């Protein structure tokens, strides 16, 4: 046992020196996560902001101007000009001068005055499908709000908030500003951690095979468990630094809150990383080659963590085969914990199933990679 500890310590210390001396490892480990966080946080946004809007106002009444104001007041839409005819919409879209056209027909004010629902047209450039959907939801909410307000002023005694659609209310539940950065940062954290953990361990072990130092290592009394534990420990420590770094940056740059149980989050992070490190180890044990290991690790960690984890696309909206597949993607559970703890204020009661899933994945990966780690050479 004492010899085991001496050997593990020697392995872990050596590995830590590698990390410290290798600029690429440091870059992948500490700089890349921050860059990805900023890229995703700022670049990938489902927020609808400043959609260029052209207006066709055939009514030319105070009410129609009020509706245009309501659309542009919250900065979701930005008025870029007026059109005489809605038929010109295609040209405006094609030239990129506007992505939305609001058409208010003649008789809008009169319809409101009669207490009827007035119809307005909203033409959207659907080239970007996801922001189109988001814009529609917004526009719907606002037109109802605006119409209600106008109706309220015309018909005394009616509540102004009566027309608010339910969809707008749910959207803002744990994320009052409706900011997708808050929704995305937990996802980015899991994604980046998965990628970096798998990639770094895969590289670290494959490198030893390629250099032939693995053979030298096998000729010593160092056992495979010594190697696995000695390799995982320093990267686990590095992963902990990454989590802190990314979450701190998330809080600082994007105002990410922390509402729930931090201990649950820490345990989930450690289990998640163990699983990803184990996956990297397994890849390098099987491939024994840095090139192949790099490709296998990026593919096997990046794609599921991005597409099947709920990071980008809600799991509930997936077709059932993908939904079933997402159950074996550990990022799914880690993202659930991150969102739960950070945004919803969850703790043990809500998140223990996710922790169990993460534990199972970590145990499986470390066990399989240790078992596959043949200390014989042929």
């Amino acid at each position, binding site marked *: 046992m004492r010899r085991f500890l001496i*050997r593990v*310590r020697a392995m872990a210390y050596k590995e830590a020196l590698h990390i410290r001396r290798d600029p690429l490892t440091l870059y992948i480990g500490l700089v890349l996560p921050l860059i990805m966080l900023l890229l995703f946080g700022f670049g990938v946004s489902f927020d609808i902001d400043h959609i260029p809007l052209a207006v066709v106002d055939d009514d030319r009444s105070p009410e129609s101007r009020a509706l245009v104001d309501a659309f542009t007041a919250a900065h979701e839409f930005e008025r870029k000009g007026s059109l005489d005819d809605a038929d010109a919409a295609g040209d405006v879209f094609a030239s990129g001068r506007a992505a939305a056209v609001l058409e208010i027909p003649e008789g809008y004010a009169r319809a409101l005055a009669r207490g009827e629902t007035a119809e307005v047209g909203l033409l959207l450039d659907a080239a970007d499908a996801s922001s189109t959907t988001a814009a529609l939801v917004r526009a719907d909410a606002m037109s109802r709000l605006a119409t209600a307000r106008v109706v309220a002023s015309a018909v005394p005694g009616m509540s102004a908030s009566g027309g608010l659609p339910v969809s707008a209310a749910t959207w803002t539940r744990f994320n009052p500003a409706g900011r997708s950065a808050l929704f995305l940062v937990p996802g980015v954290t899991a994604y980046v951690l998965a990628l970096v953990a798998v990639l770094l361990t895969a590289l670290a072990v494959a490198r030893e095979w390629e250099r032939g130092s693995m053979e030298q290592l096998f000729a*010593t009394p160092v056992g495979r468990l010594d190697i696995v534990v000695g390799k995982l420990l320093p990267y686990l420590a590095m992963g902990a630094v990454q989590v802190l770094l990314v979450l701190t940056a998330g809080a600082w740059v994007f105002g990410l809150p922390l509402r729930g149980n931090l201990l649950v989050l820490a345990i989930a992070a450690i289990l998640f990383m163990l699983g990803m490190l184990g996956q990297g180890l397994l890849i390098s044990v099987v491939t024994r080659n840095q090139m192949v290991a790099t490709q296998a690790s990026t593919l096997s960690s990046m794609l599921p963590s991005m597409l099947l984890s709920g990071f980008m696309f809600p799991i509930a909206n997936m077709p059932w085969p993908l939904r079933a597949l997402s159950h074996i993607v550990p990022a799914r559970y880690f993202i659930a914990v991150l969102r739960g703890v950070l945004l919803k204020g969850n703790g043990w009661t809500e998140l223990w199933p996710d922790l169990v899933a993460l534990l199972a994945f970590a145990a499986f990966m470390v066990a399989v990679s240790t078992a596959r780690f043949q200390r014989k050479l042929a």
Partner: protein
Amino acid sequence: MTPDHAIEVDALSRRFGAFTAVDAVSFDVGRGEIFGYLGANGAGKSTTIRMLCGLLAPTSGDAVVAGARVSTSPEAVKRNIGYMSQRFSLYPELKVRENLEFFGGAYGLFGRHLNTRIAETLDRVGLHGHAEDRTSSLPGGMRQRVALAGAILHEPGIVFLDEPTAGVDPVARRRFWSLIRELASAGTTIFVTTHYMDEAEYCARVGLMVAGRLPALDTPEGLKATYVPGDLFVLRGPGAHADDARARLLAVPGVVDVATMGAGLRARCAADAHVRGDALAAALPAEVEVEPDTASLEDVFLAVVDAEAQARGAARAFGEGD
């Protein structure tokens, strides 16, 4: 196992699929002996050494190394040996001291004892004062001595060196071999593979591997007497350049073999024929300078490969590819 044998090998074999890399090899190595293992690339040297180090399980046969069976207790073997692999596998981005600390730790050394051993070993291999050097910054010869230091840090009874001098300049090679001799005279058994024939002369005994088998094993002198018997002469000058020089020499009674050597010819004569140098000179049409020569292990190697090829009908010396 007898107490004076550090290594006992009994019909050790290793097959990779249909290919037999090592074919029923048997030999013993005495304590404190420098045992050289020679052969062409792919003859099975590395496969043998890997089996003896517990890195590769034998397909059949067995070996007892430092008192432990490689087939059943490879871990016990590993504890008691030092191994320096073909590409001396140090970590280039680590300092010399850090590399040694790591290998020391791998063998369970730690604390003050480890530090003392590192200092002693660095002194011994002549690298005193280089502990803080980045390993990648050292020249090949020095790196090779660091690797040796890593293999002897835990004071093993047997050290296995797999082509330790590959890619190292002649001066460094000589220096390395004087280190090896010092180690052996202090009682460490050395098992070394090489394909440099001149290095094999430093070994107490030499085994010659050809296509997975070990047809020849003896002291260098014994091998020469067995495989290159008789007297050797080197002939240089215009006479040796004649088109039919070879045929003329072979016609001299007692001449067994004639081969080109540099700008001249080299003739081997049967020992009991007592051929004289002037008899050879007289057989040639022009003037020639004749000098007696001694056999080298290269002659032995070629003779053994030849004999093996004849025994098998065809020379097949390609191997597992190392």
